[in-house]
């Protein structure tokens, strides 16, 4: 599963890269009057993402609300560690704006970070930097849930990025449409590869609605799995 995730992350972040052409035409467009500085806008969709899932980063380089085409834009990232920006900005992609001044890239984030776009002075346009957009990245935790007679539940799963020797809470909630908070049922611990596997005896014929939760660390927010509604262990297979 983790290999698959890593592959997809590579595909999303790598295969579809459409780099700026080696020889850039001078940026064109924009509305010259009234005199003003160009604007470089940046949007990330979504701004809260599960590690390894794809996100779309798009923006527009414009002057007086008119797009500036053929402009070389560098998309940059800076890590967020323990809630604060850490290190320097690194360029992750070079793109060229369309004739309407728009650029779009697909990528995936693994750790909390912020993104910005930078246009470096060319033609008639000065160096312009967008606002920095924080990307909130949730840990990716998976699970497979099965009932095992008599009256036991087996759960196994993995984390991405791999979180070794971390506690996973198996939690219960009310039925769909009746959420009143999470209650801990039991705990598991991930191994050195970030995987976990646990079997636990529960009350026979009682219905559980289970989700697995892993807490945050310095680089990723905590996250939970979807809910397995209607888990009902029984005495017989």
């Amino acid at each position, binding site marked *: 599963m983790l290999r698959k995730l890593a592959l*997809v992350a590579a595909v*999303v972040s790598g*295969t*579809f890269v*459409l780099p700026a052409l080696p*020889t*850039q035409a001078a940026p064109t467009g924009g509305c010259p009057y009234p005199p003003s500085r160009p604007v470089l806008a*940046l*949007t990330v*969709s*979504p701004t*809260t993402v*599960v590690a390894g*899932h*794809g*996100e*779309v980063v*798009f923006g*527009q380089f414009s002057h007086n609300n*008119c797009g500036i085409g*053929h402009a070389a834009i560098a998309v940059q990232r800076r890590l967020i560690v323990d*809630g604060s920006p850490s290190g320097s900005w690194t360029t992750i992609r070079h793109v*060229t*704006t*369309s*004739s309407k001044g*728009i650029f*779009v*890239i*697909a990528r995936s984030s693994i750790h*909390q970070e912020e993104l910005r776009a930078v246009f470096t002075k060319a033609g008639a346009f000065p160096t312009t930097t967008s*606002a920095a957009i*924080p990307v*909130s990245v949730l840990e*990716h935790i*998976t*699970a497979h*849930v*099965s*009932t095992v007679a008599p009256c036991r539940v087996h759960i196994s799963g993995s984390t991405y990025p791999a979180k070794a020797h971390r506690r996973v809470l198996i939690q219960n*909630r009310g039925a769909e*449409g009746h*959420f009143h908070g*999470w*209650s*801990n049922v*039991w*705990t598991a611990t991930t191994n050195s590869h970030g995987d976990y596997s646990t079997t636990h005896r529960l009350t026979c014929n009682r219905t559980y609605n289970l989700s*697995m939760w892993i*807490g*945050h660390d310095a680089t990723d*927010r*905590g996250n939970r*799995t*979807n*809910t*397995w*509604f209607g*888990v009902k262990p029984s005495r017989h*297979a």
Partner: protein
Amino acid sequence: MNRHISGIAAAGVAALAATALGGCTASNSHHVVAAPAAKAPVAPAYAPVLDPGSEGVDDATGTATITGGSARPIRLTATKSAPSQIAVDAAGHYTVQLAMHGAGGVFSLAGPAAVGSVSGDKVSVVEPSSGLYVDTATQGSTCTVAYTTVSEARVAGTAACPAEINGKRLNIRVVFSVIPMRAHVTHG
């Protein structure tokens, strides 16, 4: 979380990128758990909308259709590999984070959800081919979001955003609907 990854959504996102750039020259105790999630100190416009530590959060798939920008409606999807989310807290308040992608554009919606009109949700829409770019967080755009259905089983509604492309005023409308991805128990 049954987050099975496929390349389908990635392909859609890639197609969008290509569209945008096309033509360019260049323990056992039972107790209610407090919210333990870490949150980065960010500007309010970018504060995370989901709190999986205390909320019931489920991935969701669905569709959205943008009209009013391009000559034809633009259809977008949220898939298993790039899902949206529906969240509910213990008080019964819902929050959504929708992110729909396709070859023709992107639609995002994040914030509180309740049947009727809701203010303050963040909306962004881009259609590279038409030059449409709406973002309530960075562009000063104003969108009106109205939900017709809000539950753990389905969220649906519309977002209406006035926009301007090359001096021409447009009324952009996005109709969206998502349903949660349900995980299935196996019996051993």
